[in-house]
């Protein structure tokens, strides 16, 4: 499922304009230890993290993550958004917490067959 459709179906705000909206989401990953994320997240996962510093963009790039989801309406630094736009990584924001996002995203990806594991 494309990032644009995913964000729209789950009522998430897109903080990075048109950047990378046609990237494909095939799964969801949630973790806040950056080294763990780069070695365990899968390509095309949507990544949920409470971190908002610039480094999340580098991690997303290296792990080939499709988009970053910031939960619980945490505000994101302008510099991070700017870098994400430059690198083509969309950042989504929502009031939901990580568990709620996983549940909703799981239902959504299952319904469309985007994640074969579900």
């Amino acid at each position: 499922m494309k990032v644009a459709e995913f964000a729209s179906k789950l009522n998430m705000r897109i903080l990075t304009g048109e950047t990378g909206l046609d990237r494909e989401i095939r799964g969801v990953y949630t973790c806040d230890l950056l080294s763990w994320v780069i070695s365990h997240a899968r390509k095309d996962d949507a990544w949920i993290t409470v971190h908002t510093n610039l480094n999340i963009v580098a991690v997303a790039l290296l792990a080939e993550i499709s988009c970053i989801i910031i939960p619980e309406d945490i505000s994101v630094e302008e510099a991070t958004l700017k870098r994400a736009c430059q690198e083509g990584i969309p950042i989504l924001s929502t009031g939901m917490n990580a568990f709620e996002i996983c549940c909703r995203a799981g239902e959504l990806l299952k319904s469309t067959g985007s994640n074969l594991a579900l």
Partner: protein
Amino acid sequence: MGDNVIKLDYVIPGDDFSVAGEASSNVKKVLNQLGIPPFIVKKATISMYEAEINSVIHAGGGNAHVEIDNEKIVVEITDQGPGIPDIELAMQEGYSTAPDEIRELGFGAGMGLPNIKRYSDELEINTEVGKGTTVRITIRLKA
């Protein structure tokens, strides 16, 4: 590529945590442009990223030198930091000497060196307490 060797050099600034990872992101782009298979690019860039971050966290930055030939990618990260007193301990997953403010950024989980070991084909660490550390990572392009 024949005898061609591509050499890339980067300065890793130690005072600006926000640019940490730029050298490895750049190397990733170069490797992709060269048409190197994605799983090899991933191995090289994850290893380099961890070493780069280590030099920022522990050593006030350093230098990265990358050489790519038709057989391998070699990444050498050199710093003039405090050195590693106990390599065996530092290689243990979960062991970290990173300060709290670094951990708050999502680093310092004690996975840097273990990740490098996992993703590289060869890892050589030369370190001297009080002088600095050189981490040399080799990723082979052929099985």
